[in-house]
């Protein structure tokens, strides 16, 4: 699906600024993320994490700077890029009055997936929801919704997956299932995760980024990070920007 980016980088963020008037949600953010990496983004509330992910997923445009995801520009190549990204949020992003199967078939239509029914059945099986495929998602538990949400995000076989606090609101059992699912697909995708949970985020990631007041405070590979020092930096930033 599509050509491989020449640099081999899944993300290339250069001087990314997002501002409205004087307020800067993101201020000259720079970083590269290689393909196949798992990036965890940490930071206090209002640090710009959600804004960053919204720009990377083409939902917002940058005010200045350039952003390439999978080698595609988020502004000029937005429609093409949307074929390559998936999002799993703490919000399920599913229609409550459609069945599990109808939800997936609807999004399959939106993406123009060939053999949609086949693909939907396969995904429902992999998230262990095939027995509930004809039930309205209104009747689903939080954990089931999150599994279905993962199936929706994987429908079009995206190259890069964004996880926006996927663990928030999940019970321990649902967290286990999510862990297993992520472990299964880990090798096939690049991951970008927003997390409030430092231990969880560090456990999963290959790269870590701390954002505060719209600026990158720290960005490094997991192996190069001294965990104690990292925790100290994180704690220092959490106080920042919180009014």
């Amino acid at each position, binding site marked *: 699906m599509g050509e491989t980016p020449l640099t081999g980088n899944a993300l290339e963020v250069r001087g990314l600024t997002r501002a409205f008037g004087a307020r800067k949600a993101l201020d000259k953010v720079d970083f590269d993320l290689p393909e196949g990496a798992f990036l965890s983004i940490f930071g206090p509330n209002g640090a710009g994490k959600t804004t960053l992910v919204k720009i990377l997923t083409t939902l917002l445009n940058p005010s200045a700077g350039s952003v390439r995801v999978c080698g595609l520009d988020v502004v000029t190549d937005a429609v093409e890029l949307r074929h390559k990204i998936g999002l799993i*949020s703490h919000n399920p992003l599913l229609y409550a009055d459609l069945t599990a199967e109808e939800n997936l078939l609807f999004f399959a239509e939106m993406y123009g997936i060939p053999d949609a029914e086949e693909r939907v059945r396969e995904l429902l099986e992999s998230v262990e929801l095939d027995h509930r495929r004809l039930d309205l998602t209104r009747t689903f538990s939080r954990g089931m919704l999150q599994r279905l949400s993962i199936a929706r995000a994987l429908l079009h076989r995206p190259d890069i997956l964004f996880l926006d606090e996927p663990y928030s609101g999940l019970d321990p059992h649902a967290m286990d299932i999510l862990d297993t699912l992520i472990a299964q697909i880990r090798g096939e995708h690049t991951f970008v995760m927003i997390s409030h949970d430092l231990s969880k985020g560090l456990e999963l990631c290959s790269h870590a980024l701390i954002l505060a007041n719209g600026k990158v405070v720290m960005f490094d590979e997991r192996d190069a990070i001294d965990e104690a020092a990292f925790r100290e930096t994180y704690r220092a930033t959490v106080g920042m920007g919180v009014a």
Partner: protein
Amino acid sequence: MASASWRQFKAILRKDLVMEMRTHEMITSMGLYAILTMVVYQIALTEAGEALDVRLVMPGLIWVAFIFMSLLGLNRSFVHEKDQGCIDALLLSPVDRPVIFFAKFSGNLLFLLAVEVLSLPVFAFLFLQGREGISNPIWLLGVVMLAASVGISGVGTLLATMTVNTSGKDILLAVVFVPLMYPLLRAAVGATFAAVIGGPGSIETFWSWMAWVAGFDVIMLLVAFGLYEFVIGA
């Protein structure tokens, strides 16, 4: 690309129809509203009794009912999208924003027309029995209803996309929507009046009011279409 947009258009419209068939949310609330309005009309007109030719006020009464009825439907139409953040999933998919506009607009138009077509005979049954009927051919009413509902749904879809993201969305939609609809309603009432009362020259009057309706539709739909991408992305 064009065929992809058409496929996405159908998918969104079908999804909205399936959900409506399942919940009956919009049709029920709009239909009930129409019936309640008629009860209120009965109270309003009762003292006038036989002295009043209901046909003189009928065009105004039905458009009052239709415009407020449409507000109910429009408010509902984006609640599903907002509920669990579905609108983000929709915007994340490779769909051109105008496709979303036309699909939501078509759905709203269909629901509005359905309730209009159901409530008009009820109105005639309750208020026009034993009185003089509608003078000009009845299909003229169909023409006004279709054309004016296009304008209502078009501008309404744009405004509902905004107001769903605001505090106090139900009231706000009425506040921004009704004044904007003034010219369209004025022309729709004029055309409906010409169709109902009849008389010499009424067909010409009807069509000249319809020219206003059509003009409003074309101008406002183009503007709404042009603004939609900005509004839905905000």
